[in-house]
């Protein structure tokens, strides 16, 4: 299951979708909206996505992970739109026969998602807003 979602993410649904009788482990990463960044108080976030390419890139990452680790199922769901503090921004769930692979693959998937998947985060502060990573 690989999706960009404009609705709130159901974490249990993601875990259920990763279930497999061959799996001895499911590692789940949940990215949530933090109320601060560096010294600024964050009021809310907005995610913009290039849906077609984002899903394509996430599918490529899932395929690459399958080449590196023995994986049963991969779930990647990322939000778009306006998110409030505490909301779930992204869920990645990876099931594997043995736990080490699930930890490693899950970390690699979120790390690489942040580098290559066309999703943009704007933080809104009390006195302004900023697209993250945009400037040097």
């Amino acid at each position: 299951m690989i999706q960009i979602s404009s609705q709130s993410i159901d974490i249990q649904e993601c875990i259920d979708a990763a279930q497999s009788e061959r799996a001895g482990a499911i590692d789940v990463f949940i990215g949530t909206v933090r109320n601060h960044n560096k010294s600024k108080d964050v009021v809310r976030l907005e995610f913009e996505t290039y849906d077609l390419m984002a899903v394509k890139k996430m599918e490529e990452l899932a395929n690459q992970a399958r080449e590196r680790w023995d994986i049963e199922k991969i779930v990647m769901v990322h939000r778009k739109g306006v998110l409030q503090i505490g909301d779930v921004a992204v869920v990645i769930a990876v099931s594997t026969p043995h736990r080490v692979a699930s930890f490693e693959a899950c970390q690699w998937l979120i790390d690489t998602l942040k580098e290559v998947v066309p999703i943009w985060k704007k933080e809104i502060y009390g006195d302004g807003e900023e697209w993250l990573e945009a400037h040097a």
Partner: protein
Amino acid sequence: MIKYKISLFGITRDIVGGTHTSIEFAQQANVESLLAKLRKDFPRLNDIRSLLVAVNAEYAEGNFPINEHDEIALIPPVSGG
């Protein structure tokens, strides 16, 4: 003239204004010439840490040729997760 329609995301949407922009070339453009023209027309694009182009939902660079009906997107630094 060849008219290219470009989708804009993130900070490039703020800089250029709007979700899309169009630019015309006398002959077929490639990724490099497209970026150069956009940077000239919208100098604030030069303030961005990096600027990539996607053609038909795939990163492309340099002399990769662009056809009139390709889906072209400007990709500023991504920040998902």
